[in-house]
C-alpha cells in the first residue's frame, strides 16, 4: 500500500466538540507526572488569573490526535497505522486551555514527502473554542495550533 500523494493540501473540517472537563485535566496531568496545583485545584488556577483548571502544555494532543485519526482512518489515504512513527510535534498556544472549554479541530495536511519506501506526512490542527450551545461553525476563538509529522515506514524499513 502506498501513500496517496494527493493528500497534500487536503483539509478535514471540524467535527464533534471536545468538552474539556476538570477530571480529564487532572487525569492527563497525573499521566504526564505533572504536579503543578493549577492542574488540580481550582483556587490555585484562579489565583493565577485563570477561569478554571489549566490543562498541561501538551493536553491539546488529545484533540489533535482525534483530528489526525480522520486522515489515518481515511481509506483513501493509504496509511497503515501499525507502520506510523511520530517524528515531531509542536504546540502553539494562542491562549491557555481551561476546564469548561468546548474545543473543535480543523485538520490540514500541509506536507506529504516520499521517504524511501514510506512517507513523511505533516498535519496541522487548528483548535478553536466554541461557545456553549453553538454549532461548530459558529463564532469561534483560536486556542492552539498543533503541528505534527508522522513517518509512515515503507516495507522493510
Amino acid at each position: 500500500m502506498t501513500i496517496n500523494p494527493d493528500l497534500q493540501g487536503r483539509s478535514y473540517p471540524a467535527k464533534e466538540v471536545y468538552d474539556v472537563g476538570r477530571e480529564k485535566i487532572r487525569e492527563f496531568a497525573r499521566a504526564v507526572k505533572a504536579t503543578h496545583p493549577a492542574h488540580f485545584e481550582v483556587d490555585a488556577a484562579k489565583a493565577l488569573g485563570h477561569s478554571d483548571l489549566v490543562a498541561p502544555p501538551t493536553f491539546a494532543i488529545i484533540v489533535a490526535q482525534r483530528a489526525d485519526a480522520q486522515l489515518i482512518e481515511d481509506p483513501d489515504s493509504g496509511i497503515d497505522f501499525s507502520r506510523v512513527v511520530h517524528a515531531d510535534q509542536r504546540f502553539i498556544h494562542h491562549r491557555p486551555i481551561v476546564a469548561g472549554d468546548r474545543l473543535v479541530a480543523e485538520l490540514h495536511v500541509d506536507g506529504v514527502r516520499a521517504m524511501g519506501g514510506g512517507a513523511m506526512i505533516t498535519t496541522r490542527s487548528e483548535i478553536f473554542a466554541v461557545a456553549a450551545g453553538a454549532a461548530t461553525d459558529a463564532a469561534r476563538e483560536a486556542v492552539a495550533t498543533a503541528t505534527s509529522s508522522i513517518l509512515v515506514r515503507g516495507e522493510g524499513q
Partner: protein
Amino acid sequence: MKPTLSELAVGQNIGSRSIDVTRTDLVKYAGASGDFNPIHWNEAFATGVGLPGVIAHGMFTMGSAVQLVSDWAGDPAAVVDFQTRFTKPVPVSDTTGTAGAVIEVSGAIGALDAEAGTARVDLTVTSAGQKVLMKAQAVVRLA
C-alpha cells in the same frame, strides 16, 4: 517566586529532574490521551514490528519533560510554544517495584526576546545515555 525576564541570561540552567517510567505509567498515559497503539503496551506486537520491546509514547516523554518548565515558570499556561523532534524510542522494561526506564531532563535558557516578553528554554532529554528528544524547546511568557 516566578522568574522575571530581566534577571535571566542565555545559558543559565533552570534545573533538572529524573523521571521514573513503568509499564503502568504507559497504560495510564494511553488511557488519559486516547493513544492505544499496542507498541506502547503489548510486547509481542512491539517486537513484531521491529522495535526492541514496548516503548514509551513520544508524547509521554514530551509531556513529562515539560513539567520542569511549568514548575520553573510558576504557571503552566506560561508555556506558549513547545516543540520537539522524536529521535530515539524509550524502551520500558516490564518491571515490578522498580523503574522500567528513567528519563533525565535538564533545561537551560536558549534565547531571550525582551520585545515579545518570552524566554526560550532548551531541554536536554536523555534515557539510558541517549538523547531521545531533539530540538526540545519551550517558549515561556514571563513578566
